[in-house]
């Protein structure tokens, strides 16, 4: 029995309504409890800011495409090298670091739970293997369904129950966590050299539209009672004028769940462009935020970009091809049979480029104009907008108008006429930052009940103690301290153990992988469905019996079982 007591912690725990109280936190066997015995190990937080462990609700850190990003960028691997040190493995890389590099850097920033943004079910084994090598964070994987043939056939037949059954089969087979739709229909169309340009375009050969896919999947998601909602990367990413598609998509969403949103829109910054070409691109964040404010069943994340070098990677193949046509640098495109695609391109975001400046401003505007911080989460879509190590800078930008003004002065001068950022005065407070970096994520992902994102007794003992005294620092002027504080915790505690202290990793770590198993009635089990089995044998290059991920790939799997309403 291991016990730990954190004394004098200045706790902000938005899910339990605690805002800046000095209190003690007791931990026994990896869980938070009411009190511990006198023999407990004591950590003195000395009045420093103490938050639940960070949760990143959309990041790309593991999986085949991340790995492809690694080996197509040797120049990236030369950056950020650290030698082996005690229990720390060798790390390297900046925008696509090694798995251990990701894990240690997240740990130093106080993050303890990550959601991998996109996992192709066919390539799930590799993702799970990399999860095991990301030792300090509990991992979950969004499973890609955007171009899944079985799904599209069920959607075409307008059969929500069959769609739910297909989702249930694939989630269980891939050990996935939630439904991810990346440019729904578009990646399948890309297999034929085409793309969809709006949510009412028809996908070639399947006679379905993205709107039908999204609508049916949202309903199937609720039928299966999955913890997270549908996780959507809208159509038309990065196209000037695409905000209309995003607004149309938000307009589709029914309110089906009382405890959380019904649709999670990811990296909305890339989907909020007005104008018609790259020359007259402008920010439509006001329209998007208005729609989000009026639609409480929707949650978005920022997808902030930061200036500098990074690597873009997404399952959205056609969009990566368009990027390649702009950059003419190395690139890759990839097709996953019957399921989805992907693409990778290294990029550099310049302050000299008006387009990049507008993108930078839109991300911040989304966070500042969304009234309810539970509806707009902080993310960079790591590494597409920027590597996650830039989060502290984004926090500082959101908390300080002065810092924003300083940065705005460096932007391309024309930017001012294309974005409303210059006129926004709002500065977020500590509580809102805590919401946007952990509590809202835990709520949106539906992992509050398994003890993530809060610090009430019974919760997982994931705690981050930052060297920041909220009563002494004025974030609107002392933003440098805010950046330094959020970059390196005093202590990061994972499941009741101190894993990182003042930026130094001190234990090997053993994470768990959280996955979802929807329980469906026997008549909806597709392993016995002759039509599904026949098509599987006909179209896939793997046998159905070899397809599901074996338990050996999840040495510490945590299964959330849901009872489907079928």
């Amino acid at each position: 029995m291991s016990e730990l007591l954190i004394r004098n912690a200045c706790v902000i725990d938005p899910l339990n309504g605690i805002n800046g109280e000095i209190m003690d936190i007791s931990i026994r066997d990896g869980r938070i409890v009411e009190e511990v015995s006198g023999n407990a190990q004591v950590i003195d937080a000395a009045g420093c800011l103490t938050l639940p462990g960070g949760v990143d609700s959309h990041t790309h850190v593991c999986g085949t495409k991340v790995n492809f990003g690694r080996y197509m960028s040797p120049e990236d691997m030369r950056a950020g090298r650290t030698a082996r040190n005690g229990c720390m493995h060798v790390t390297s890389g900046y925008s696509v670091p090694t798995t251990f590099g990701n894990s240690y850097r997240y740990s130093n920033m106080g993050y303890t739970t990550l959601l991998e943004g996109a996992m192709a079910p066919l390539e799930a084994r590799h993702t799970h293997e990399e999860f095991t090598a990301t030792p300090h964070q509990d991992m979950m994987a969004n499973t890609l369904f955007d171009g899944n043939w079985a799904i599209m056939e069920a959607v075409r037949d307008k059969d929500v129950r069959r769609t739910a059954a297909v989702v249930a089969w694939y989630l269980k087979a891939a050990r996935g966590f939630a439904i991810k739709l990346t440019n729904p229909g578009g990646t399948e169309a890309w297999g034929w050299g085409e793309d969809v340009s709006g949510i009412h375009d028809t996908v070639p050969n399947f006679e379905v539209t993205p709107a039908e896919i999204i609508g049916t999947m949202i309903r199937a998601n609720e039928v299966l009672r999955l913890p997270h909602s549908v996780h959507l990367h809208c159509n038309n990413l990065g196209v000037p004028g695409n905000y209309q598609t995003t607004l149309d998509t938000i307009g589709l969403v029914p309110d089906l769940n009382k405890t959380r949103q019904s649709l999670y829109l990811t990296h909305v910054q890339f989907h909020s462009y007005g104008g018609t070409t790259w020359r007259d691109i402008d920010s439509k964040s006001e329209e998007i935020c208005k729609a989000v404010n009026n639609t409480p069943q929707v949650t978005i994340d920022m997808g902030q970009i930061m200036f500098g070098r990074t690597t873009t990677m997404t399952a959205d193949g056609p969009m990566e091809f368009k990027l390649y046509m702009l950059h003419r640098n190395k690139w890759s495109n990839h097709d996953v049979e019957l399921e989805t695609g992907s693409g990778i391109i290294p990029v550099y975001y310049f302050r000299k480029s008006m387009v990049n400046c507008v993108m930078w401003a839109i991300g911040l505007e989304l966070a500042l104009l969304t009234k309810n911080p539970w509806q707009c989460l902080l993310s960079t879509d790591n590494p597409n907008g920027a590597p996650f190590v830039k989060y502290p800078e984004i926090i500082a930008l959101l908390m300080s108008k002065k810092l924003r003004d300083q940065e705005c002065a460096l932007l391309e001068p024309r930017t001012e006429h294309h974005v409303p950022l210059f006129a926004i005065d709002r500065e977020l407070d500590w509580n809102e930052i805590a919401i946007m970096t952990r509590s809202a994520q835990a709520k949106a992902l539906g992992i509050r009940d398994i003890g993530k994102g809060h610090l009430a007794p019974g919760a997982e003992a994931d705690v981050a103690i930052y060297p920041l005294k909220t009563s002494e620092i004025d974030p609107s002027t002392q933003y440098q301290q805010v950046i330094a504080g959020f970059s390196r915790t005093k202590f990061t505690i994972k499941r009741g153990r101190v894993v990182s202290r003042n930026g130094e990793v001190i234990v090997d770590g053993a994470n768990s992988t959280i996955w979802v198993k929807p329980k469906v009635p026997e008549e909806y089990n597709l392993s016995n469905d002759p039509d599904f089995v026949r098509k599987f044998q006909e179209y896939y290059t793997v046998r159905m019996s070899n397809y599901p991920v074996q338990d050996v790939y999840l040495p510490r799997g945590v299964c959330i079982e849901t009872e489907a309403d079928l």
Partner: protein
Amino acid sequence: MKVILETKPRKKPRIPIEAETIIPQNFLRGTDITVFEGNKERVLDDLFYISVEGPAVSPDQVEIILRGDTGMIKRVGEYMNAGRIVVEGDIGMHCGNFMSAGEIVIQGNADSWLGREMRGGKITCLGNAGHYCAAGYRGEKRGVRGGRIEVMGNAGDFTAEYLSGGEVRIHGNAGDLAGVELREGTLVIEGSCSRPCGNMTGGTCMVFGKINDLLPTFKSLGIKEVDFEGKKVRMEIFRGDVANRGKGTLMRAV
């Protein structure tokens, strides 16, 4: 200053030594330098008999001489920016990576990746060079960007892959796929090679020996007299790679 490093006999001579620290600028502060033998960090003194002659105030006055069983020493001269290194024998992989100035002379054979992604300076190899001589690293779009690499013997496959500046001269034969993805700069092969210059987008490649399996995407422009080092030589000129805009030049002696 002359630094002579002579290898000491090792129990397991096949274990490679990672010696990216053996560059002239590091010896200005003495010979207190560490290298890796396998996964063990060693001081230079453990692996070499060291003798230092004369003083030096800047790295370009430093000459390093490597002697003895040097064939398993890798990454010598990585990021070197001045001075001179003489290897009195063979050298291991990745010699002269990213070097920007100075000179490396190898009196024996060089292993693979000689002078990869070099920026400037000069490398002379009196023996043969391995695969990927003067190439870019895997995934990198620009390889050697400047300087000169001269190999008196033969070179292996993928010689001067992604060459984008500088000059590479092979006096013997080159292997398969020499000069693929060539972008800028000059590649001269005095011997033979096979399937050269696939997907080249610029630059010049001259082959004085035989070309085996010339790729079909090269378009002949006829035979011309070309000036080469003061002499007139008759060469058949090809434009290519036509599959990728065809702005490069490949010449074959006739």
